[in-house]
């Protein structure tokens, strides 16, 4: 018995002395920024951290800024000069300066993924204006509860399918994929609301090359399976609510040219009509509207050689890897896509319920 006790005691001593648990910082000794803004001035990064602070019952927003040769350098400088350690693991949203996005995000994204300090599923956004101005306005806003910027992108809160949801890991993936690019939502200070969403930036190889509208983003989300449920589509004749959608793709290579057949099935309900259009007319109208919109978006992205819909993914089994590497430049611009929209009007509203 005594022998065992000595052994246990010895083991306990080892466990307790070899842990380093005294290096743990308690949560109240850490700064927890929720939003990080990154811009680049020459070769120096500028970091703007938005810290939600609870004061009695109110949430206040504190903004701190730092510059450094790298992001880690800037964070380190902040930790040195603040009374608490700065931890980026609660960052939910990374706002990038538009100019910076045009210059290229490759280094920053790789850095973020490498250090793993920021969660890979943090949201990305691009700011259409100067970050100092943008965050200055964010600070002035007085959110009653929660954080405005975060809730704006929160799927359970302010998000609508017009806004692209792009995560850090998705941007990082696009850097290393030859068949997939991403879009990042663009925001700016709103006139009527705190933040305004004005479309999405098309990112190719880590650089912003073009911009698409919120309506196109909706289509992107529908195509991406992000759930278009509950969106209102306004047409000339009627306003409809999309209840559910599913799509099927079929791809083939004929004479070294890519062809694709895509079908988007929508189930809708009618909300408002102008006059008394027939159901067939509404169906036709809606499918033409969406088809046109889709083709317009495809043309823009084909010009810029940015495959945001990831159409190249469907050719992975059809093209050898060596050729797939040139997907963006060689194949994507000449892709012919037969896009069909099938609309099923599931109900005509709740007129007959009484």
């Amino acid at each position, binding site marked *: 018995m005594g022998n065992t006790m000595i052994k246990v005691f010895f083991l306990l001593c080892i466990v307790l002395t070899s842990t380093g*648990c005294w290096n*743990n910082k*308690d949560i*109240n000794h850490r700064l*927890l920024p929720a939003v990080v803004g990154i811009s680049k001035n020459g070769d120096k990064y500028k970091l703007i951290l938005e810290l939600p602070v*609870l004061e009695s019952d109110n949430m206040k927003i504190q903004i701190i800024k730092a510059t450094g040769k790298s992001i880690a350098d800037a964070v380190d400088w902040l930790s040195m000069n603040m009374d608490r350690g700065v*931890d980026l*693991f609660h960052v939910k949203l990374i706002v990038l300066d538009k100019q910076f996005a045009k210059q290229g995000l490759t280094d920053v994204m790789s850095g973020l993924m490498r250090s793993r300090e920021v969660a890979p599923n943090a949201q990305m956004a691009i700011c259409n204006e100067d970050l100092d101005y943008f965050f200055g306005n964010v600070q002035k806003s007085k959110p009653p509860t929660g954080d405005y910027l975060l809730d704006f992108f929160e799927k359970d809160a302010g998000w609508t399918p017009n806004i692209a949801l792009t995560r850090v890991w998705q941007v990082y993936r696009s850097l290393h994929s030859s068949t997939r690019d991403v879009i990042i939502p663009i925001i700016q200070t709103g006139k009527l609301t705190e933040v305004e969403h004005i479309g999405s930036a098309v990112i190719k190889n880590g650089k912003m090359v073009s911009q698409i509208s919120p309506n196109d983003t909706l289509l992107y989300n529908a195509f991406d399976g992000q759930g278009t449920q509950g969106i209102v589509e306004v047409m000339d004749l009627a306003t409809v609510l999309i209840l559910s959608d599913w799509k099927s793709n079929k791809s083939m290579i004929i004479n070294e040219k890519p062809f694709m057949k895509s079908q988007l099935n929508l189930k809708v309900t009618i909300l408002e009509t102008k006059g008394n259009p027939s159901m067939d007319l509404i169906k036709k109208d809606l499918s033409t509207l969406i088809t046109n919109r889709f083709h317009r978006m495809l043309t823009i992205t084909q010009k810029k050689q940015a495959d945001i819909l990831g159409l190249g993914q469907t050719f992975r089994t059809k093209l050898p890897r060596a050729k797939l590497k040139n997907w963006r430049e060689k194949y994507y611009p000449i892709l012919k896509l037969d896009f069909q929209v099938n609309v099923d009007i599931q109900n005509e509203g709740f007129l007959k319920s009484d």
Partner: protein
Amino acid sequence: MKIWLEEIKTVFKECDDFFLQHDYLYNQPVILFGLSTLIDIPQTKKLIEINLNMPKYSLQEVIDHHLVKVAREQNNIIDAILEGKIILYIPDFEKYMIMEVISKSLNRSIELPTNENVIQDALDSFIEDIDTNIGIIRKHFRTKFLITKVISTGIEQEKKIALLGLEAHVNQNLMRKIETQLKEKHDQEIHNAQSLVKTLGFSAWDIVPKYKSTEIPTEVIASLKKGKVVLIIDDFPFALIFPNFLWDMFTTENERNLPIPLMLFIRVLRVIGVIVATLMPGLYVALVSVNPEVLQLELGLSIAQSREGVPYPALVEVLMMLVILELILEASVRLPKSIGPTLTMVGGIILGQAIISAKLVSNLLTIVVAGTTIANATVVGIQNHLMLRLLKYVIVILAAIYGVLGIIVGTVLICAYFASINVYGISYLDYQVSKDESNNG
């Protein structure tokens, strides 16, 4: 034979309650002796007169026909005296007779269970007398298949231990092993459950009890039906059921009077209670000091705010609160019932309120600690309750060192420890002794 009497007198020389009376029976001079503290003497004398008053026979014939128990050895007499019997010595025949007596009532009556609560079931509970306890079981469970083996152990103090099992159901192997173990070590003194566990050859250092103790007869009967072995020890107001299972922590027999869905609901609650009681304080430490990234941002902020100005690290804070709470629990057991409520008020309301206003611990921690204590109370059996109270410290310390990973490691350690516990090869994690059971848990 006259010498015996002298020797017995010397044995009880120091006992002032030993009495020796000369009397006449059938005109024969007799000597009565025994312990006056155990025997109601006048009533007993009447009883003896009635019993031996058989007009057809003489006293000589009564003795010769073995109508009374005649002692053959001196030790028998001493044992009988200690058991509270009266000895009738007839000098003319030189015979010692052990007579039944009317004993002084030293037992309390059968009352409501005091350590366990019963809802909608038989409300009687065991008392200190072994015969009464077995009697209660027999009354509740009228069957000819009940095996009752009484074994005595101890030299200085003889202790009767009854081994109960149900023929055809009982795990024969277990029963035989307990019986042989007790018989082999019949010289061991058994004063308490610890010495019993040692006598049965188990380590007394295991925090998981090898037996389930209960003072409720219906609980015992249910265990007998499941094939378990029940030990009833003289002077113990509870029965020890071998073996104890992990699942016993979540079940009581009186739930079976409820519909199955309600029974399951209560049991699921207990499982949640056990998980909360063991993991919550550890989770607090892990999330606050090691892995705050796991928290939702909003939650993280409100925790950070509630910890603003708290001088201690999370581990010290948690240990401090837990120890204070353990002290309150222990004190409320020790104190007389009349002072108990005062303690609850001082401990719960005044201390709780003051400790927060003094900014010694965070608001959240008080919620965590209160939740832990409440959850801990859902478990069945006081031993299991204590075991969980102890085990949560393992998790707290590991959580302080390794965070969420530590909690997982701690849980694995505890599970491994549970898996190592067995009673003569029947694992603690098993749920039935005989394999033919299927009655919804």
